[in-house]
């Protein structure tokens, strides 16, 4: 990984870390902060996907279309022969980004909010298990 790529990767990873921690903290009071939990779940995986793509390919995802990262992550998994389990969690969250952000429907505490948190955590665990470039680099905390 080039020095500049590493620097940018660490920036996106750190952003994902803060979104994840904020999501976990706010999820202690889902009734009050459920909408924020769901949105932070989405942004946790967007930032981490950017970190993965920069760390492994030198190119980040399209900031206007986060669905494009699904294909890029899938290709990366194919090249490295690793399972694509995490991509399913990413896809679920990206498809919910607009309804979570602007939708008229009230979010369901279990189907939406708890699921969003769980999928963000599972995508994060999958990412760190499979991509040493983001797991081992830089400060850990």
């Amino acid at each position: 990984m080039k020095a500049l790529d590493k620097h940018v990767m660490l920036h996106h990873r750190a952003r994902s870390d803060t979104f994840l921690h904020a999501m976990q903290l706010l999820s202690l009071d889902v009734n009050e902060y459920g909408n924020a939990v769901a949105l932070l779940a989405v942004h946790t995986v967007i930032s981490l996907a950017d970190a993965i793509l920069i760390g492994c390919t030198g190119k980040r995802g399209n900031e206007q279309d986060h669905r494009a990262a699904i294909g890029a992550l899938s290709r990366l998994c194919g090249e490295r022969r690793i399972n694509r389990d995490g991509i399913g969690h990413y896809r679920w969250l990206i498809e919910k980004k607009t309804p979570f952000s602007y939708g008229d429907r009230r979010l369901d505490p279990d189907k939406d909010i708890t699921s969003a948190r769980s999928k963000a955590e599972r995508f994060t665990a999958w990412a760190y298990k499979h991509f040493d470039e983001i797991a081992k680099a830089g400060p850990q905390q």
Partner: protein
Amino acid sequence: MTPTQRAEARSKEPVSRCLIRHLIVPSIYWDALWPASEPSVDLLVIDRAGSGDIHIVEIKRRAADAIKAIPQLMRRPAHYRWIAFFADTADRKIENALLGPRVLFPSEGPGRVGVIEIVRTAGDTLGAKIRIPAERFPGSLDKQAASFKAANKPDISFD
């Protein structure tokens, strides 16, 4: 099981939750043989889903016993070392020792043992919070961690 053993066993869960709040989707092993040749350590926590830094935690009911456990904790490989004890067992002498220059530090080099306080709240529920943050000890433990993960399943993970 004595009341002390019960309290220490029950504390594994709140101390795990405490570290989950500060780490990133860690893999947590209770009563881990780390290293295999030593008696088990109460918690072995590997950050970033088992790919990151290694934390170990020794849990004691009494603060004085936790401090006595530090020399053995120092002999185990880890990037971060922690002691945990019930907050109501720390008297003035313990408080002064924790703030002093010797108890939590290695004889040489970087690193500081962190302190986690366990508290009993309403309904006999246990909670835990970081009182003194741990500071990183040097070293690479990738090989030991890989061997350990191949032979053990975490008690808590985010898969």
